[in-house]
């Protein structure tokens, strides 16, 4: 079965990760725009970042047989720099129409400040305007309240819940998110957020409907193989293959396909690899022999 990681920050990862992900069955990913570890101080830096998500990173993924889609947004943490925020939101208008942009994200609350609230609401409106789903970050601190405020804002803005993926859920937030009609993401982390065993237990009680899992792997201690590892953990507690496929493939495809820009079928296999291709003269190869799959071949 192909696997989908609907939230991973590949610009922070290596080609070793791409190889391991492809070998473990990951065939498609969504990379949301996020916080790069330290604050950016110019709108132009965001523009180059958006361009790298749309260009170089998509090409890099393809070289390993992985379909790369992205979500673009001003993340909640940097929404607090008010001098920057409006410039980045203006910039989004030029980029949200592009192919391969399947959502507005990550948006949401972090410290739950006023500027965060304003940028969150503005970007929900942008998503309506550009007919895109949204990928919503929920805070690490004061999570339950932040998640409830998120659901409230979605409701108050009359944003269609079926177009909202509320991420980083845990035992205390999942019921409310599912009840709201939104989709529920879970970031499986080595130590914090959620782990494979807890996730399998949640699926046992809640079933697979509107549930997604992701690695949220980035520049910190994280693991880009958490989706296959969680699939295995679910298998080990007796969750059926069909439910696992719903969570790890069908749900993310269905959710992001609402953008009208995800040209992969539910039953698709991985993309063919041709490492002879260059992107603006660049190759991911450093002297190795290029890997070339037959067209539409299965990555093994």
């Amino acid at each position, binding site marked *: 079965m192909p696997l989908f990681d609907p939230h991973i920050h590949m610009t922070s990862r290596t080609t070793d990760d791409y190889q391991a992900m492809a070998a473990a069955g990951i065939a498609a990913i969504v990379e949301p725009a996020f916080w790069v570890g330290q*604050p950016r101080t110019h709108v132009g830096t965001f523009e180059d970042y958006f361009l790298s998500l749309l260009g170089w990173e998509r090409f890099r993924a393809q070289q390993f047989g992985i379909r790369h889609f992205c979500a673009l947004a001003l993340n909640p943490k940097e929404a607090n720099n008010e001098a920057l925020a409006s410039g980045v939101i203006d910039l989004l208008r030029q980029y949200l129409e592009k192919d391969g942009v399947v959502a507005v994200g990550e948006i949401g609350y972090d*410290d739950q400040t006023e500027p965060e609230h304003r940028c969150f609401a503005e970007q929900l409106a942008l998503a309506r305007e550009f007919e895109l789903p949204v990928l919503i970050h929920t805070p690490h*601190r004061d999570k339950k309240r932040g998640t409830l405020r998120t659901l409230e804002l979605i409701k108050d803005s009359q944003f269609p819940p079926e177009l909202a993926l509320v991420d980083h859920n*845990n035992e*205390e937030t999942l019921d409310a998110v599912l009840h709201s009609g939104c989709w529920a993401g879970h970031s499986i982390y080595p130590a914090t957020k959620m782990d494979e065993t*807890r996730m399998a237990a949640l699926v046992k009680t809640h079933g697979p409907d509107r549930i997604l899992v992701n690695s949220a792997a980035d520049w910190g201690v994280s693991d880009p193989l958490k989706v296959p590892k969680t699939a295995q953990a679910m298998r080990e507690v007796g969750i059926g293959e069909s439910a696992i496929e719903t969570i790890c493939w069908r749900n993310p495809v269905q959710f992001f396909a609402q953008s009208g820009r995800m040209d992969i079928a539910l039953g698709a296999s991985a993309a063919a690899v041709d490492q002879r291709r260059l992107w603006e003269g660049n190759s991911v190869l450093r002297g190795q022999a290029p890997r070339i799959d037959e067209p539409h071949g299965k990555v093994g």
Partner: protein
Amino acid sequence: MSARLSFAAVPWFADALAAAAQRGATDRTFLAAWNGMGRHLGGAPVLLSQTEMATLGSEAAVAPQRWALDELGRAVLLLSAMDVMTPEQQERTVVELFRKGELRQQQALARVLGYLPDPGRFVGVAADAIRSNALSLLEIMVGGNAFPAMHLPELTFNQMVVKALFNDISLQHLPGLGRRCTSELVRMVRAMVSERTAAGRPVPADVALITQGEPDATV
């Protein structure tokens, strides 16, 4: 301070302070000294003896334990420059130095915030230090630093406390924690305990400082 400097660093530091006291932070001499402080002074901890603490008396607050020499050097340099600058220049300088600062420089700023003229102007810099992923900045904000309790708005203060708990950074030495312990902070910390318990994860011991309310126990 000069007792702890190397022989060669003493005149260098004296010159830098003199230039700053004359021309503020607006010329290249200041930036050269600000940027070169680590190379000239080194980063050894400034551990004051009992006698020195007693000699300094009330001034000891400006040179507390745990500061490194380069951090203290930058703090003193900045304070010297502040005296000859307009309030607008002061504000712009501190914000810019933080924005363009590397970690040691930002650490020095996080430590000196409370000693700057009209320190309440710099809550934005403090919020950025707290929001940073470099946890040494958060450690400085909650480690014997009087600025947060005196100046931070409630939400920023509460986020700082909860972030420290999340990252297992001790709150034992946060001055004024008892005084700033509102029902909202207690609610946030209790929510964190509930979330950790639901996840089967350990709860940091310092939550008791908030949930059991020890008024002013940490001052």
